[in-house]
Structures are given as C-alpha cells and as structure tokens.
C-alpha cells in the first residue's frame, strides 16, 4: 500500500502549475488527495509526476458578487459547507456537500478535485448541474469555461483536456427565496451514495412553484437533469408530483456490485419527491420570513 515513486512539484502560482501540466509527461494534479492517493497506493494509477496545487495562491477563496458565487478550486469541501454566505445564497451546495464522505475527508477534499474526478456519487456534481454553474479551466493556451451541464460526460469522464487545470466553479445568482434539499441513500452512513436527488424550488408571492430543478445521481452515466417544468404553477401536491412518474419511468439506471439497476429505479422517484417537497417547504419558509 505504498505509492510508486514520482517526481514532485509544488508550484505557487496557476501559471507555474499550468506550465508543469502542459509539458505532456503525464503529470497529474494532486489536490486533496482523497481520491488520488488511494488509487496511487493500489497502484491503479502511477503518475510519473505530481503537481501539488495545495500551495497555489488565489484558488482557495469563496467570493460573492450580486448573489453569484465564485468558488476557487482549492476550497475544501468542508469550507464550502461552513460558509455562511454560500449557505444563504445557494443552500443546495451545503445540503449536498455535507454528505461527501466524513469530516476528515471534507477537510482535505477540494471543490476542484470533486469536479475533475467526477465520481458518479459526487454530490457536488449534482448541485453544480442543478444550479447551472460553470466550471472554470486553465491550460497553457488560456482560460476556458464549460457549463456544468455539458462538463460531466460519464463516470470519471469530463470535458477536461489532458494538462488542463480546474481553477474554480462559478455559480449564478438564484431566484430569491429559493429552497433547496438533497437526499441520498447509501449502504452505510456517509458512504458513497447509491442514488441521490438534488432539488431547488422557488415560489411566487402566492406560494406556488415558480421554478424548479431536479438532478439525480447514479441513474444515468452523468448527473441527470429531470424536466420538472410541469411543476411550475402548482403547490407540489400529489397530483402535480404524479406527473414526475412519467418523467422518471424511462430511466434505465446501471447496476453494479453494490446495488441493481432495478433498486435504483425504485429508489430514485422516492428521493426525487422527498427532495422536491423539502425544497418547496423551505422556499415557503423563506417567503414567510421575508
């Protein structure tokens, strides 16, 4: 259980990191190491060189501007969970990311690592898609932005090009007073999700749904956005939610050593309703508080 030898680089700027990654010698980014180091110990991956970005300046801040958030790639998952401004403007981030492993995992694991690794259970990927966030990238040829909705291509597959660095995630402002909820099912507490549902709901002054988003994990190759436009104008009662069943009936989730596809198909609608209902109730609380 010891990694093979590697060349080790600890750059202090984005430019330096990108130059090292651009040399094309198979160098890999080391961020929180919570996914990469176990793989290196099993020698499933044997990078010739590591570019440790933990000392890179300017990537560890969460900035709020006019309701939008700019989250640096090195922001630790727990720092995102604990950030009061983010919890206020984008409660889905906290609701989702608090499920990402254990406290010690989240103390090291990073936003950029979670996006780049794109594990099928990664809660942050569902939140990024639901919130229509944009992944910020940098390579020797310059910066580039990719919407989360096209960044994730499949399990551990993204639009990231070899040698490209994730520098951050920008999350647009949300409708005021939107509520958010995240539910997942796993074999053990805080273990990898078998199925998960992320939802946001905004309500109008009369208390009816004005906009809603629903993203499911592990029912399709990448985070799966469900069309819930039919909920607009309703109060998410049983009849309105019944229309969801049609949207979810066509799902054909993959099975694996842990759970079958049939199990996922059965659990997904339950979590979807739970998440939408909770998000709607929280949106209502915001409205009353306002």
């Amino acid at each position, binding site marked *: *259980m*010891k*990694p*093979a*030898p*590697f*060349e*080790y*680089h*600890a750059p202090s700027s984005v430019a330096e990191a990108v130059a090292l990654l651009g040399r094309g010698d198979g160098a890999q980014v*080391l961020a929180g*190491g*919570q996914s990469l*180091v*176990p793989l290196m*110990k*099993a020698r499933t991956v044997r990078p*010739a*060189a*590591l570019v*440790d970005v*933990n000392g890179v300046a300017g990537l560890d801040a969460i900035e709020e501007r006019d309701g939008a958030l700019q989250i640096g790639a090195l922001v630790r998952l727990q720092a995102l969970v604990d950030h009061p401004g983010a919890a206020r403007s984008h409660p889905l981030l906290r609701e989702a990311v608090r499920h990402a*492993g*254990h*406290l*010690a*995992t989240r*103390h*090291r694991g990073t936003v950029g690592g979670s996006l780049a690794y794109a594990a099928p259970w990664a809660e942050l990927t569902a939140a990024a898609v639901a919130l229509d966030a944009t992944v910020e990238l940098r390579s020797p040829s310059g910066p580039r932005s990719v919407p989360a909705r096209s960044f994730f291509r499949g399990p551990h597959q993204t639009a990231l090009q070899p040698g490209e660095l994730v520098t951050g995630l920008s999350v647009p402002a949300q409708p005021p007073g939107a509520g958010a909820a995240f539910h997942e099912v796993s074999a053990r*507490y*805080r273990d990898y999700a078998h199925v998960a549902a992320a939802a946001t709901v905004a309500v109008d002054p009369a208390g009816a749904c004005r906009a809603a988003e629903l993203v499911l994990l592990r029912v399709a190759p990448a985070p799966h956005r469900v069309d819930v436009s039919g909920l607009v104008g309703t109060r998410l009662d049983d009849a309105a939610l019944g229309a969801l069943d049609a949207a979810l009936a066509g799902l054909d989730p993959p099975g694996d050593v842990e759970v079958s596809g049939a199990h996922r198909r059965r659990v997904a609608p339950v979590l979807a309703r739970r998440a939408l209902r909770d998000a709607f109730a929280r949106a209502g609380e915001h409205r009353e508080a306002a």
Partner: protein
Amino acid sequence: MSTAAGQRVTVHLEVNGLWREAVVEPRRTLADLLREDLDLTGTHLACETGVCGNCNVLLDGESVRACLMFAVQAEGRSLLTVEGLAADDGTLGDLQQAFHDHHGLQCGFCTPAMLLTAHEHLREHPDGGTDEQIREAISGVLCRCTGYEQIIASIRAAAEAGP
C-alpha cells in the same frame, strides 16, 4: 519546489508542540513519517485508503487522514497526535481518563483516532453538543469492538467534567 522521483527532501513540522524534522521521499505518507521516522506509533493504520479513520490526526487543529497526505505536504504545519494528549509524565488527559472510566475502549486500536476526533468535537462543542452531533463527529472512525455506545458516554462524561 521540485523533487526528482526517489529524491529525498527534509520536512520540518511541529508535532505535539515540538519542531521535528525528517528526510523522506515525497511518496512517504504523513502516517508513515510519524510511525517510521519519528517513532510515534500511536497513529494507527488499518485500511490505508481513507475509509476507516483510524489514522486521524489533527492538522492545524482539523482532523485529517494521515494515510492520505504526503509528509512533504505537512511542511511547516502543526500536528496533534495521540501522544500529545497526556502530560509529559504520562498522566492521562481528562478525555483519556473519561475513556478509561467509561469503558470507551476494548482492544484500543481505534482509540487514538477516537480521542483526537473527540478532542476536535469538544473544542467546537465544549458542552458536548447533542448525542447526534457526537455520533456525527465519530462516524468517520470505525471501531470493531465497542459498539460505540461507551465511546459516546465517555465523550459526554468528558464534556460534563468540563475543560
């Protein structure tokens, strides 16, 4: 900083209040540095893949898996390991005494990580917090013996005894 494969570097870090140094390859994990280079074998290794939490140490006060960090990444940082919880003459700290009094350990393998995780929890929740919060705090550390109830009782007792 750049280091060729196999080349060794000197790492300086503060462990339990003392500055220490060791000369290691970049692939040396923090856990192995503690155990092999500094002879601090209180940090226990089981899964070595981040799952069991038995290697938890506090890095600048925050719990981390020592098996998933490279020692070079701890350069200049401050660590608390289980060896730092007792007084110099070996007298147990209050939290350790509470584990002893309330049967918070059986084989003792998970105990260093449980103590450090509880130490972090009590710093955030000096009154102990709710049972649910204690469970959440220790949920990342596996114990194969106790069934956890006595560990929760020990942490609760330490909180009630006060700082």
